[in-house]
Each structure stands twice: as structure tokens, then as C-alpha cells.
């Protein structure tokens, strides 16, 4: 049985997205306890879905925008140029837009790519603290729906 998303998981991802890295490290260490991490990948996936949907569906994005965004995100976060697969990144965004229904990406690639793209998407939104809380609440709600 998949467990519901926990406050601790939400707080951990929020700290990461807010750039509170000391807080993130502390909370992440806490998630290392057996059973604590559970739905964390689902929360990341849900938050990524919400953020990408906000940017590219509701915001009106084209394939050109997707390519440009992935380039921007990688130029900011992929220091060695080989950490984020650009094809995987574009496919994951296109999956949110409904252009792709199946991928052959392994779980690790999906999670690490989603987290990087999510970080870039949230940074671009320049959320206030309150807006970030609201965003995390929406992501949690979606993640809970997926784990039901």
C-alpha cells in the first residue's frame, strides 16, 4: 500500500525549491529513516507536473519554448553538460503536455531530470513564500490523488 505524502516530505521539497539548502540537508537526512521517503518521488513528479502545466499548458507553450527552456535549465544547472539528458528533459515536459504517452526512461533518469526541471521552473516563477506554500499544497494534493 502506498502511503500518503507526509508533512516531512513536503517540507523537504519546499526547502529545496526555496533554496534553503541547510534546512534541506537537515530535512533530507531525516527522510533517510526507514520508510520516511516513501512517496517523495511521487511528490516530485506531481510538483513537476503542476509547474510544467502552469508554464507550458496554461502559459501557452510551444515545442520551441520547451527546447528553449530545457536549454536554459541545463545551462544553469548542468555544470558538466552531461548530467541532464536534453532528450529526456524534453520528453518529460512533452508528457505533461500530453504529446507523449510513453517513455523508455529509467526511474533514476526520470526523478533526477524532473527535480532539476522543477527547480528551474519554480525559480523562474519567483514565488513569494506564500505562493510557494500554495504551489506545494497543490502538488501534495495531486500526489495524494496519484497514490490513492
Amino acid at each position, binding site marked *: 500500500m502506498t502511503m500518503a505524502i507526509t508533512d516531512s516530505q513536503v517540507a523537504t521539497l519546499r526547502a529545496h525549491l526555496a533554496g534553503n539548502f541547510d534546512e534541506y540537508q537537515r530535512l533530507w537526512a531525516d527522510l533517510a529513516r526507514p520508510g520516511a521517503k516513501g512517496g517523495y518521488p511521487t511528490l516530485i513528479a506531481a510538483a513537476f507536473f503542476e509547474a510544467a502545466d502552469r508554464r507550458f499548458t496554461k502559459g501557452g507553450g510551444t515545442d520551441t519554448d520547451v527546447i*528553449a527552456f530545457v536549454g536554459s535549465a541545463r545551462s544553469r544547472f548542468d555544470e558538466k553538460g552531461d548530467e541532464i539528458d*536534453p532528450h529526456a528533459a524534453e520528453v518529460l515536459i512533452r508528457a505533461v503536455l500530453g504529446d507523449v504517452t510513453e517513455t523508455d526512461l529509467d526511474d533514476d533518469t526520470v526523478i533526477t531530470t524532473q527535480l532539476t526541471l522543477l527547480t528551474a521552473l519554480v525559480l523562474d516563477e519567483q514565488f513569494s513564500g506564500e505562493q510557494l506554500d500554495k504551489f506545494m499544497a497543490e502538488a501534495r494534493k495531486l500526489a495524494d490523488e496519484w497514490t490513492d
Partner: protein
Amino acid sequence: MAVSDEQVAALRAFLAFDPDEGVRLTKRLVEVGPVGGYGELVYAAFVTAIRRRFHPGWTIADVIRLVATMRARRLDPGIEIDTRAAEILIRRALGETVAGELGDETEARAQIFLLAELVADEELDDAGLDEFLAQARPLANQLAG
């Protein structure tokens, strides 16, 4: 074998976006020759274009951004460029040792695409295009042995 005037003319037509002339001259090369050395000329032109575009102190982020920009503006299902291959080719042209096996076709497609885009960005007139190819030619001769 040094690159020939005919090979330079064929590449020049391609880079000047004169497809009919490009096709005619390439066909002639294939029929009459010489073909050997043309690949080296294309590669030398690519390296020259890259070195003209990037300044010392370039970063991997610059490379990533350039490839993304070029792919985004030429979005076409028929022009599928392997992003990572394109980035690796650029970094190698700039002198970096980068691991990664690139298939011949993947490499050729990325190289031709980037070369065409880079030259288009320079908005060269006839004299400028001649100068560019004259700059590439010595490297091509060196590569062709």
C-alpha cells in the same frame, strides 16, 4: 591531398543558401571528383565557424544555450539534431577533450546543421564568405594530409 577549388565551390554554394548550385556542384564532384578531402573541408569550416563564434573563456553553459537556441529556431520534424552530440562537437572544436562515441550519421547531421546556422548568423556577404572559406582551407588541407 589538398582540398580542391571545386570542393570549396560546392561548400560555398551550400553555405550561401544556393541549393540548386550546391546540388549541381556536389553532383559534379561525385561524378568527376575529387571527393576525397570534402569531408575534411566541411569539418574545417565547422571548426573555423565555432572558433569565430566562441570567445576565450567560453563555458559549457554557453554551448548548451547556443545549441538550444539553434534547435528552437529551426524546429522541424525533418531536422532532428542530437543535442548532446552537437554540444560535444562544439566543445571538441574548441579544444576540449570530451568523452562520447558519436555515430557517423549523427555527427554529420549535427555538424552540417551547426555550420549552416553559424554561417547564417554571421550574415556574410560574398567577400565575407570567401574570406571565411579561405580561413578554413589551410586546416582542411592539414586534415586531408
